[in-house]
């Protein structure tokens, strides 16, 4: 009885009932490929984990070259469960990028980006860039040897871009070299700029999904069952999220994130520096490109190529308009997608083994 009064109170002021009615109507299509529907929500869940653990870390982290490493050490040694929060934050970042890739590729292969969902795709690609930005900026924050040199190499590569490269490098580094200024700047990006952007773009992305509903691949259009989102699909989502927590706990237990050695800007780079796995395929590719292609710098060509790839990602919905009318084009896009996926996987593996 009291709950009813409370609900009515809320509804009078916030129109809750309209929301709940729409929510009750939300349905999820069920077919052979429905499993991929979980990955968007999983990515969002892991993002929430990042925000929560990130805010907790913020209570103790100090973003200056003199204090950063020591503050992370402090979190790991003195703060109760600090080691757990930090390990989870580091692992969840990687897991989120993984689910993000799976989500993106599944949408690509199912061609869910078609009309009217082009903007959902574009906002998604923007979120990809934002997430990668999160990863790159966050990686420097512990200020240990590995992260220092990974940042140095990464920003060096950015500096190779013709015309804008030098400015880009100075903008990223806060100077000509990687210093405490870089750290403070990356911290600003990581906890303020990127979260603000992400919030806005995630809101747009999720709202668009609610607006258009879930896409059904053409071949199932005629026969698919429907499942209510509340509570059925949501509870399934929940199981997935609980299992994700389990995976995070297992990773934090079996492969705790190391503190490493404090960065020394004047020490030589340790052998075998490589970036985090989601950059590895690009890094490895750059290693294989010959130093000179005709008269151009090999590295520059490689980077321009990847930038082109990123731009291409954005416009996919606009170049593959009605694939059902063109089965051959459909096949080309599928094959292309498979090649890219295989390339990324193979290069990442090679990067690790090398």
């Amino acid at each position, binding site marked *: 009885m009291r709950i009813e009064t409370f609900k009515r109170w809320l509804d009078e002021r916030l129109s809750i009932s309209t929301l709940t009615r729409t929510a009750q109507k939300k349905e999820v299509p069920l077919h052979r490929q429905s499993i991929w529907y979980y990955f968007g929500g999983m990515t969002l869940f892991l993002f929430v984990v990042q925000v*929560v653990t990130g805010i*907790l870390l913020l*209570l*103790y982290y*100090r973003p200056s070259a*003199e*204090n950063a490493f*020591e*503050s992370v*050490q*402090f979190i790991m040694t*003195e*703060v*109760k*469960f*600090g080691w*757990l*929060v930090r390990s989870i934050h580091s692992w969840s970042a990687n897991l989120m990028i993984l689910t993000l890739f799976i989500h993106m590729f599944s949408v690509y292969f199912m061609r869910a980006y078609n009309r009217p969902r082009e903007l959902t795709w574009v906002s998604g690609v923007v979120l990809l860039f934002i997430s990668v930005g999160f990863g790159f900026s966050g990686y420097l924050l512990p200020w240990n040897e590995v992260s220092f040199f990974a940042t140095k190499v990464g920003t060096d590569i950015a500096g190779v871009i013709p015309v804008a490269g030098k400015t880009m490098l100075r903008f990223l580094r806060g100077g000509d070299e990687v210093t405490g200024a870089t750290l403070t700047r990356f911290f600003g990006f990581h906890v303020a700029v990127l979260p603000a952007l992400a919030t806005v773009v995630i809101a747009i992305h999720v709202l668009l999904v609610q607006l258009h509903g879930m896409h059904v691949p053409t071949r199932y259009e005629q026969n698919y069952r429907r499942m209510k989102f509340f509570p059925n699909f949501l509870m399934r989502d929940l199981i997935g999220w*609980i299992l994700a*927590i389990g995976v995070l706990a297992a990773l934090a237990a079996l492969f705790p994130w190391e503190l490493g050695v404090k960065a020394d800007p004047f020490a030589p780079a340790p052998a075998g520096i490589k970036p985090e796995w989601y950059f590895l395929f690009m890094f490895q590719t750059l290693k294989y490109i010959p130093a000179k292609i005709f008269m151009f710098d090999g590295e520059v060509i490689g980077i321009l190529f990847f930038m082109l790839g990123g731009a291409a990602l954005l416009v996919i919905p606009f170049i593959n308009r009605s694939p059902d009318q063109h089965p051959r084009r459909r096949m080309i896009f599928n094959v292309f997608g498979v090649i890219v996926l295989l390339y990324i996987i193979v290069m990442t593996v090679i990067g690790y083994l090398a």
Partner: protein
Amino acid sequence: MGNTSWDKSTSSKYVNPPPPNRRRFLDYLLGTSAAATLGAIFYPIIRFMAPPQVVEAMQSSVVAAKLSELPPNSGKIFKFGSKPGLLIRTASGELKAFSAVCTHLDCIVQYRSDTKQIWCACHNGQYNLNGENIGGPPPRPLEEYPVNKRGDDIVVNRS
């Protein structure tokens, strides 16, 4: 007759609903398990947010000793991060602190109340009360740290 809400459990359209007792048991288990998991998530978070014993990250300052426990013309070795420091209360009552690592071969130096100098037992190195190397093999002076008093506590800072 039809599918009224109270009739739901008996309608043939429904697949094997569990008996009420099992359902209640499941609810109970689920409830406690969920509560326990939420507790297991919130407990570390709350403990994490509570300030730890050692309040600051960097050992940029440390309470080296208590005034009441350090008589004039005496010295004390204290831990500064992972390195040793030497705190001296001179005969005139002045407080001085230095790195206790001898600049010759890293032995731990000591204060000698008879010569009123800092001495290294390893190779007879001598430093004056400014930390300057005045005798024996040490090539450089000892690093000096600023000292402050906070009540009865003697606080040594890194720089």
